[in-house]
């Protein structure tokens, strides 16, 4: 090879590169205004395939919220469960329910929604072989143990507690009394599914068909989803805009930058590092409202060091040693509220939230805190290690702040230290395999706005999220009693009685309630977040 030929090669390469640039151009064009306007919104890549009973995180839940409507729907303002597809849900004994589905509803492909659409969907969700991560939602229904045994293979493929009576009616038998059960039916896992889901599953997952105000127009996995208003939607919560374009962002900082540059209409997760600027950048277009999330510190009761009679005093002392107000103001810029019970303000007073229920044990009191900890025999092992995952969220900042607060109270710089774990998956596997011997950051995001959901799955003996393996007969008894109560108000007060056991025992320390935060552009109005801190997309109007 001689020089001249090489020069030609190089020239060719440049030409190819330039030609490719020319082909690669062309961006997306924005939509028009008014009721046909398109809203662009930030999104994260859903962790699991998009199926109603398989989606347990916010990003996938967002989409399900737009394309599905179930028997009940939670009012975005009050959180109350109101009938959506359910005409009536009746029960005489709080254990056997008869559900009638409204007439006139169809899926967006024209298929009629019948009682069978629900029963088939629920049976699918409960079946072990389908790997649905929300299968436990069907755990209250009779026959769940056969369809989804804890070990071994399933002995049945359908739930014996479900029975189709006619086109519009089906009955549900629960394995125990549960008066508030109908109110759980607003959760997306209970959505009905069209036949197409079962006949051509792969096609359905790549472009889901539902019955909500929006239909999926285009879905590019991992990067974007275009949802369009479904004109024939029969519900009264029709979309007020032409559609939503969800764009996956690699980093929520980039999404925020795009919002400030006018490239994006809505960001529903303002990054912690931008909280200081957000008022100046967005003014009134910044939303900061309570969400159904509480953060706590959990302890390992499977470790004998922590399960001692004096341990109660130690945990109450530690709780009193944390200056919640200071941390929420300074580290979270008031996007969190100091917790004074174990639920969330989104429940409202009627739903069971009671400010100050915890009382003195959740209030900062340095002198008493030190005294209590010493009376209880001091921190087990002499040092409190708080484990957290260092990969996402700003956990390091607040864990350090909590430790700092405890250390000041104890007058010992090493009384409390943070113990970071590399990834969330590793953190969760250490928690679930009971490998932690100190405290760890815990939290609970509600599945449905019920006080039951904040207590039973987390603190009931051997409950699914009772990671610390705390167990208390009195608490369990009160929860059972509350579930059997047919009067809702009485059920709520009984749950609060159970919560008072938590005050006396302090199995986990409540830290703060988390708010949802969002910011939006000048192009859109009527933006709000529901109790799950997901934007109420169908209400957004485009200018």
């Amino acid at each position, binding site marked *: 090879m001689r020089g001249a030929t090489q020069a030609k090669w190089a020239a060719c390469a440049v030409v190819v590169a330039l030609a490719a640039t020319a082909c690669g151009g062309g961006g997306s064009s924005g939509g028009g205004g008014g009721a046909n306007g398109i809203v662009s919104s930030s999104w994260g890549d859903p962790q699991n395939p998009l199926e109603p009973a398989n989606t347990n995180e916010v990003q996938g839940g967002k989409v399900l919220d737009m394309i599905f409507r179930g028997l009940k729907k939670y009012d975005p303002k009050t959180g109350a469960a109101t009938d959506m597809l359910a005409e009536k849900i009746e029960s005489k004994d709080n254990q056997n329910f008869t559900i009638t589905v409204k007439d006139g509803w169809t899926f967006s492909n024209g298929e009629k929604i019948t009682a069978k659409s629900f029963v088939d969907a629920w049976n699918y969700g409960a079946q072990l072989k389908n790997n649905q991560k929300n299968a436990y939602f069907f755990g209250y229904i009779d026959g769940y143990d056969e369809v989804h045994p804890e070990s071994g293979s399933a002995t049945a493929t359908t739930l014996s507690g479900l029975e189709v009576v006619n086109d519009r009616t089906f009955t549900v038998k629960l394995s125990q009394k549960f008066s508030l059960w109908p109110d759980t039916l607003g959760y997306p896992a209970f959505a009905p599914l069209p036949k197409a889901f079962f006949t051509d599953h792969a096609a359905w997952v790549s472009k889901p068909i539902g019955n909500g105000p929006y239909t999926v127009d285009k879905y590019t996995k991992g990067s974007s989803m275009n949802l369009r208003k479904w004109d024939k939607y029969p519900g009264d919560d029709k979309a007020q805009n032409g559609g939503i374009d969800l764009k996956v962002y690699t980093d929520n900082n980039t999404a925020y930058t795009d919002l400030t540059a006018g*490239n994006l209409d809505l960001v529903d997760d303002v990054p912690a590092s931008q909280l200081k600027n957000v008022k100046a950048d967005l003014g009134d277009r910044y939303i900061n409202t309570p969400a159904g999330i509480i953060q706590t510190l959990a302890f390992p009761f499977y470790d004998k060091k922590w399960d001692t009679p004096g341990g109660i005093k130690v945990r109450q002392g530690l709780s009193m040693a944390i200056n919640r107000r200071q941390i929420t103001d300074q580290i979270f810029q008031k996007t969190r509220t100091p917790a004074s019970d174990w639920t969330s303000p989104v429940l409202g007073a009627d739903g069971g939230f009671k400010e100050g229920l915890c009382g003195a044990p959740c209030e900062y009191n340095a002198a008493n805190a030190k005294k209590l900890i010493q009376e209880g025999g001091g921190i087990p092992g002499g040092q409190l290690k708080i484990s957290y995952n260092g990969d996402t969220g700003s956990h390091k900042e607040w864990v350090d702040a909590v430790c700092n607060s405890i250390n000041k109270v104890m007058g010992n710089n090493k009384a409390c230290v943070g113990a970071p774990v590399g990834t969330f998956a590793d953190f969760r596997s250490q928690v679930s395999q009971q490998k932690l011997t100190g405290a760890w950051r815990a939290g609970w995001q509600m599945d449905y706005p019920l006080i039951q959901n904040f207590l039973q799955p987390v603190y009931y003996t051997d409950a699914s999220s009772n990671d610390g393996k705390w167990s208390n007969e009195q608490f369990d008894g009160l929860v059972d009693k509350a579930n059997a109560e047919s009067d809702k108000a009485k059920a709520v007060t009984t749950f609060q009685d159970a919560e008072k056991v938590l005050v006396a025992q302090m199995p986990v320390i409540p830290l703060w309630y988390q708010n949802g935060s969002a910011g939006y552009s000048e192009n859109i109005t009527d933006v709000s977040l529901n109790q799950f801190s997901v934007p109420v997309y169908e209400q957004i109007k485009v200018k």
Partner: protein
Amino acid sequence: MGRYVIRRLLQMIPVFFGATLLIFLMVNVMGDPIAGLCGDRQCDPATAAQLRSEFGLDKPVWQQYLTYMGNVFTGDFGTAFNGQKVTELMATAFPITIRLTVVAIVFEVVIGISLGVVTGLRRGRPVDTTVLILTLVVISIPTFVTGLLLQLLLGVEWGIIKPSVSPEAPFNELLVPGLVLASVSLAYVTRLTRTSIAENARADYVRTAVAKGLPGRRVVIRHLLRNSLIPVVTFIGTDVGALMGGAIVTERIFNIHGVGYQLYQGILRQNSQTVVGFVTILVLVFLAANLIVDLLYAVLDPRIRYA
């Protein structure tokens, strides 16, 4: 030369297996990936067990590795946790990252080598000193600072570019991210070229060429530059792999859904299938780039022969 190429290709085999095994072990020691799939609550044990057996995580690591490698040779890289085939992820991610890398390499070659030649020929003059200081500044500032700064200035303040790259990632949107990605290597290319040019400028063959009365341009490009490019080509060659794998920061800042992003997600979710698959391909790219560099030596300097 044919024999040389074959020997090099054979040498790649143990490197390939060793590298993939290492990555496989590293991902595996991070713990149980299924635990992270259910969010802040525990997966119910039956579903967890079912998922574990579906992803083959219930078998010993060596068996997982063997099955995995067996599948790789049939073109099956497994499935990511969101139900997508890893090959599908690769098909969307690699073209984007290759485009980004091409932009970065073009910047390195065009700007880096030109600046290197200019400064190398004018050693000690103001131009040389200015460029030296500039490259020092670029090297000492971390990529994410340059990236965020350019994004803020060009994207938000002046509105020249869009701050984020669209999912299709066309070439024109990748110019700024490519420049950011190339910046540090670009500075090194400049410095390498400068030194090499400065050294060779006093060589006998250059003096001969000048004495023959050849025009200056021809002397520089044909005689001086060609001989000075060997260290630069070595650097750029290894840089191809480094740029593709190391684009995590740049891709995050500019919202580019390329290899770096997929790797980052794979690591966060502890998705061994994604991580091992992508790294396997990156290892191959690295090896191929190195081979091409070695072969280019002979083109640049015919005295180099392969046995």
